[in-house]
């Protein structure tokens, strides 16, 4: 007991030790960073120069940015992305659960679906959907019957083509998510008297979301861009709108640039949404959630106004 421990506050209530001198040192110079910055900037400059010298009418881009046709294309692209992802996620969850089911028929069906839709290019699937009239001349659902050609509108072909294909990929993502949840969770839930379905909905899926959301955000952004393939079924999306406007106005390439800018804006907005969604499903996994960028900015501002007071 003679050795004083620094944990004992009562041991030395004397004056605090003087704080040592602040370190003054010459920081390491990062010459590499400077060199790579110079190289990158000059390459960018050269590319920018080339584009500015090209025969491009840049003025057309802002002129047509909020053109009615373009806006309709943007709306259709966003709408189609949402619906195709909704179909993909919904069906993907069902397929994932079937795949993991004890019922061999369900699991084989799901396996076959995934195998088939992942095995064929989505562009081909789109073309097949619109041309399936060759197999089904008419459609008869009992309450609804029609010629196939009238039934299978470009929108429906686009939605089915993209959504059903997406479901195969989502099924794998959801399956990985479900399998990432500790078995003790299912067990605890069953021990409380919860049914399989309730266990899945209330316990397993919410925890699987942490694993499911990030790749799903990726899929979403991919989908947004993949919708440009629906030109194959003559659906009026952003790319189609840009091409139409381009051929009318004679600024074809400019309108492709315009479409690119719109795609970048949309993917950026989705990425921000994804960030907040991921944060929501991180609940409980960490002791504290990391601050959002917005909260971080506010905290920084606050610290500027009111400098930290030592206690």
């Amino acid at each position, binding site marked *: 007991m003679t050795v004083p421990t620094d944990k004992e506050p009562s041991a030395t209530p004397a004056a605090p030790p003087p704080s040592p001198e602040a370190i003054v040192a010459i920081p390491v110079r990062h010459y590499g960073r400077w060199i790579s910055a110079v190289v990158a900037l000059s390459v960018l400059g050269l590319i920018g120069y080339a584009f500015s010298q090209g025969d491009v009418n840049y003025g057309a881009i802002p002129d047509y940015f909020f053109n009615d046709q373009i806006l309709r294309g943007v709306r259709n692209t966003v709408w189609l992305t949402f619906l195709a992802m909704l179909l993909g996620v919904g069906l993907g969850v069902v397929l994932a659960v079937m795949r993991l089911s004890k019922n061999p028929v369900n699991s084989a069906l799901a396996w076959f679906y995934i195998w088939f839709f992942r095995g064929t290019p989505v562009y081909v699937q789109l073309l097949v959907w619109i041309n399936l009239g060759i197999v089904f001349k008419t459609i008869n659902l009992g309450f609804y019957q029609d010629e196939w050609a009238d039934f299978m509108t470009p929108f429906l072909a686009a939605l089915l083509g993209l959504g059903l294909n997406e479901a195969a990929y989502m099924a794998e993502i959801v399956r990985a998510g479900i399998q990432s949840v*500790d078995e*003790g*969770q299912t*067990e*605890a*839930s*069953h*021990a*409380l*008297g*919860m*049914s*399989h379905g*309730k266990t899945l909905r*209330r*316990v397993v899926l*919410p*925890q699987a979301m942490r694993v499911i959301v990030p790749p799903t955000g990726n899929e979403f952004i991919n989908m947004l861009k993949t919708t440009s393939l629906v030109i194959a079924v003559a659906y009026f999306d952003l790319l189609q709108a840009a091409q139409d406007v381009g051929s009318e106005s004679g600024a074809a390439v400019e309108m492709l640039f315009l479409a690119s800018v719109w795609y970048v804006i949309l993917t950026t907005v989705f990425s921000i949404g994804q960030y907040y969604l991921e944060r929501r*499903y991180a*609940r*409980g*996994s*960490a*002791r504290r959630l990391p601050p959002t960028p917005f909260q971080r900015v506010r905290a920084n501002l606050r610290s500027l106004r009111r400098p930290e007071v030592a206690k």
Partner: protein
Amino acid sequence: MSESSGAVPMVRAERVHKSFGPLKVLKGIDLEVAPREVFCLIGPSGSGKSTFLRCINHLEKINAGRLWVDGELVGYRQHRGKLYELKDREVASKRRDIGMVFQRFNLFPHMTALENVMEAPVHVKRESKASARERAMKLLDRVGLADKAPNYPSQLSGGQQQRVAIARALAMEPKLMLFDEPTSALDPELVGDVLDVMRGLAEDGMTMVVVTHEMGFAREVGDALVFMDDGVVVEAGHPREVLTNPQHERTKSFLSKVL
């Protein structure tokens, strides 16, 4: 075993067998747990204690023998001499009367302590949120954690998590509680709090089957004790007798290692 009263035993096992593929884990377990009894199960690792506990609420299916809880067959219905498997829904509804506490707590990490306790009453029993919340708060208070209600499990210590897990199981107002080594994942200084809660439950007359390595708890609180080894009951009796005066060699050598 305690056959004192004529009451229906809370748990009755008759030559219960269980194998996982070629591995025989339970090789004929016979025992009886009387209502309001604290029944302790001890034995070396791999002897099948957890497996037996899981059979009681049908998390595992037994291969042979019979198992009753409160006079009803576990997992089956007997009709004209034939056994019919219960539907998943029926099994689930029977489990509501049996609480289970796990070695690794298994709290739901995406819910707060309060939400964990409210989950089953609200979503299984369809109790109103308001009344479930009120009862959940009382239960959290009972395990000494009222102030931790809004915390997520990751923000609680192991001992606190286990006490929330006990509150969660109690929220279904079970007639039987199963404990599978509830304190063996805890730091020594946290064990006491959990055992105190269990002691309180025992005093309130809860029927409990407890797999444990806490011989002090078994001796003090237990009404009956069974020593299991290699899938069979080797020795059974009152905890004080078995622990202080074991009859079988295997019991003696096991106790000499853990005491």
